[in-house]
């Protein structure tokens, strides 16, 4: 059972999608019901994975390794560690919430919408489980197609432009990744005489430094577009704003994480020397993203695009934490991936709820919602505060660790990035104030109905998660820790060896790592004595 649970979680939504094909288009509620049940069962399955997951063990768990395309050495290799585990659980929870949230807002092409959502779930969970680079690539691309349809068919006024832009941006990155992938495949062959795409096997190989620089660039481009890192972010506002609520939630909640996940799962362990060489550039781009995203958010008139740009800023934090390359920073940024999925997902859900009532998202059209929609305002408040990173909410835990890690790695980065937190408070609270507080200025807002039980049902689990992670994050950190340690050991090993070989990686790291290596050598000597 244990090794079959992952394929079950991955393909259960797709089986559900096949089931949906049999339901006639007219029975919209049956379609919604079936798809809700399927996604709910998937969520329960992912909880089972969480329950059976051994928090202290390092390495991959629930591994399944099956020959797939034998003649080229492609395996159906699945397995998860703590990082993947949390992201899978996040994905399945958000999928359920998204299907619930689309109950009333998606009325045309209900069948197609739910089939797309379920296939999308398969693609996303698959990305987080794949341990074969070829398989990873397949899942990575597969989720593009349903997302393209979700934005293009059920999106807003400029949906077609947004959908095509989204696909083209993702494609250019992933195609270059494909070339890099094939290159590694033959590099591995020339070193070991074996054809394999297996991530764990390839990880044990030492890629030549010059090749690492190119390969890292190719993979990093694909992932950076997905994150999105600053100058590759231009697809994001369009896609987020035009997508239907469910699409935005999945985009912000899960798809962006696939980029950062790619960095931590593939780029960093496979190309440790290149990671160190590119580190300053990526850190600077992350910091630009933090500040730029925040400043642009501040001037948005549309709540949805404000949330979209705030994602650029938050994902900048995640990237900075990853590339701080120390336990605090990386753990914080993995945690922040989850937090951002929860908080920003919730913000998009809330925006969707008032959009359904008023058919506008302009901040100026609202004001005084606290009086007419008290429950909505409370939920909105909690989510806003968690997005800012108030202590006791989830956002604080992640951002604090990231900043701690950044300060340890480089004080300047830390200081500049910390200003992003202040800016976040500015744009979020200002927006909240204009939407919720004050007098009801617009007559149309006076008759708005407060949240329905269904909508409350969507938001309650999110609030629970916000406080759970904010107050007692230990179970999550426990599971992340061994995985993060594995990655960092690999990178620190590279720092040592790069100092030994005297390669011209970034000078500052050489100096730093020489100190470390002397320490290690000294220790070795004392141990011998």
């Amino acid at each position, binding site marked *: 059972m244990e090794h079959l649970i992952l394929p079950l979680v991955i393909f259960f939504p797709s089986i559900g999608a096949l089931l949906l094909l049999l339901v006639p288009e007219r029975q919209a509620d049956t379609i919604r019901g079936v798809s809700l049940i399927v996604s709910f069962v998937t969520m329960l399955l992912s909880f089972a994975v969480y329950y059976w997951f051994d928090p202290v063990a390092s390495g991959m768990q629930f591994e399944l390794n099956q020959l797939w395309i034998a003649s080229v050495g492609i395996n159906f290799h699945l397995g998860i560690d703590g990082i993947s585990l949390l992201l899978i659980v996040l994905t399945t929870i958000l999928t359920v919430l998204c299907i619930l949230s689309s109950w009333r807002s998606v009325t045309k092409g209900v069948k197609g919408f739910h089939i797309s959502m379920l296939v999308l779930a398969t693609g996303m969970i698959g990305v987080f489980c794949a341990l074969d680079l070829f398989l990873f690539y397949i899942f990575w691309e597969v989720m593009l*197609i349903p997302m393209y349809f979700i934005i293009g068919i059920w999106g807003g006024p400029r949906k077609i432009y947004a959908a095509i832009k989204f696909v083209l941006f993702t494609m250019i990155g992933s*195609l270059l990744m*494909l070339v890099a992938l094939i290159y590694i495949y033959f590099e591995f062959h020339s070193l070991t005489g074996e054809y394999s795409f297996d991530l764990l096997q390839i990880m044990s190989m030492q890629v030549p430094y010059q090749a690492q620089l190119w390969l890292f660039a190719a993979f990093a481009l694909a992932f950076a577009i997905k994150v999105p890192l600053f100058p590759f972010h231009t697809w994001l506002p369009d896609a987020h704003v035009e997508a239907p609520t469910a699409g935005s939630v999945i985009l912000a909640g899960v798809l962006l994480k696939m980029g950062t996940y790619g960095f931590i799962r593939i780029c960093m362990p496979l190309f440790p020397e290149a990671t160190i060489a590119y580190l300053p550039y990526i850190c600077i781009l992350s910091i630009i993203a933090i500040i730029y995203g925040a400043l642009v958010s501040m001037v948005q008139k549309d709540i949805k695009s404000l949330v979209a740009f705030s994602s650029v800023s938050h994902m900048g934090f995640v990237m900075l934490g990853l590339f701080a390359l120390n336990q605090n920073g990386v753990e914080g940024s993995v945690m922040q991936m989850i937090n951002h999925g929860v908080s920003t997902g919730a913000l998009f859900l809330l925006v969707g709820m008032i959009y359904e009532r008023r058919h506008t998202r302009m901040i100026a059209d609202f004001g005084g919602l606290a009086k007419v929609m008290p429950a909505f305002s409370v939920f909105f408040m909690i989510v806003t505060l968690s997005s800012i990173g108030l202590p006791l909410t989830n956002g604080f835990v992640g951002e604090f660790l990231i900043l701690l890690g950044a300060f340890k790695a480089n004080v300047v980065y830390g200081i500049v990035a910390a200003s992003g937190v202040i800016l976040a408070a500015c744009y979020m609270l200002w927006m909240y104030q204009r939407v919720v507080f004050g007098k009801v200025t617009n007559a149309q807002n006076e008759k708005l109905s407060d949240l329905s039980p269904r909508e409350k049902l969507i938001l309650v689990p999110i609030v629970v998660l916000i406080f759970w992670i904010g107050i007692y994050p230990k179970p999550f950190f426990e599971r992340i820790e061994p995985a993060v340690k594995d990655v960092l050991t690999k990178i620190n090993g590279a720092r040592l060896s790069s100092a030994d070989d005297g390669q011209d990686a970034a000078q500052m790291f050489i100096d730093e790592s020489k100190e470390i290596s002397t320490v290690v050598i000294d220790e070795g000597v004392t141990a011998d004595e």
Partner: protein
Amino acid sequence: MVDYVSSLSIDFSLIYPEITLLLGASLILLSVFSRQLGALAPGIGVVTLVLALGFTAAQWGDQKAGFAGMVTCDDFGTMFKGIFTVASFLTLLIAHRYMKVRGIDKPEFYALILVSTVGMMVMANSTDLIVMFLGLEIMSIPLYVMAGFNRRSLESNESAIKYFIMGAFASAFLLMGIAFIFGAAETTNLRRIAADFSYIAGHFGVYLYAGIALIVVGFGFKVAAVPFHSWVPDVYQGAPTPVTAFFSVAPKAAGFAAMLRIFVYGMAGADALTELFWILAVLTMSVGNILALRQDNVKRMLAYSSISHAGYIIIALVVGGSDAVSAAIFYLVAYTLFNLGAFAIVTHLECRSGCKSDLPELSGLAGTNPYLSVALGLFMFALAGFPPTVGFFAKFYLFAAAVKAGFVSLVVIAVLNSFVSVYYYLRVVKACFFDSPSAKPLTPIRMVPSILIVVIVTAVGTLGLGFFPQRLLELSQAAIFAFL
């Protein structure tokens, strides 16, 4: 090694598939005299092709030569013969309804398809340049007629004349090239050229290379490589749609079969071939893709897309070696499947009166024909090379062969090209799914079993081989054995 005694013998078992097809074609031509018998023509065609496929399958694994070393039977040729038969079979199924609707359902059409297939088989099978040329002509002349089969349509006539004049010109180039090579090598037999290649290249290099260049021009025309592609859009758009479908796969595959046999097996030692094909590949895929971007007619778009796909396959000629050959074969099989699938749907839509396959005519198709739109979308994603379709795996396998041989920059160019192609394939998907139906929609028509079979077979193949490419991969790896 080479058993000349047996190779001199006249061994009809080498050409059973060809004989079957010719007999079938003759039967159809005889049936022209009676209206009742004429109605049987498609049936005869189908039966003949099935028989031919059976004979071809029976040849799998045989390695023989005969007819004074002019014809061989090897897995390389047999694989290609299989591709041609399947392509003709699917085309025949697509064509039947269309020809009826357009009032051009003449028995001769089916005979022409069969004869053209014979020509392709001869091309793939022969190890002699002259016999290859014969095959090319047997293939091409029926194609010229098929292009102009809708004789009341001005475009169809234009298409036929354009194709004929350009084709004749290309044949002349090819023949001239063969003559030069004969001058240098004193033989047209590829086996003997391959055996003495270094001697010939050393002593008569000028004639040899002039000959090679002319042969590349001749076959470049047939596979629609840039800069010999200018006939493609008009011919594809003007010809009856099922004929276009046939053009885009079968003669292309035949051209590649001949080129692979000549250049990868016969003249592997030639200098500058790599550079020549490198330029040809880059030009072909880039020009094809860039020109496809602005096409508003689906047939024209598919015409340019077929040029760019030829460009990808030329990569196999650049790389050479067994990996590249099996990748090219895999690619051609995959391309035949999804391209014919796309054309089947376009043909079905064109059975409506007044439909010219312009993009706006597709708008809102998902509302009226959801399953057909999903299938069309699937074929477009396959053409663009998205996983999990076989289109992705075909590209992956081809690019992998090139990276393995060290042609990383070529692969990067190819990958950027497939990026560009995503845009125009998605335009079709966009029209079907995102655009609202046009003001005066065309009258919907009923699906007929023959086209439905093609769509189902190709769709299942496109997806199924995408998930489980292992069998086809083994076949194409086995098919690299060419008996020279």
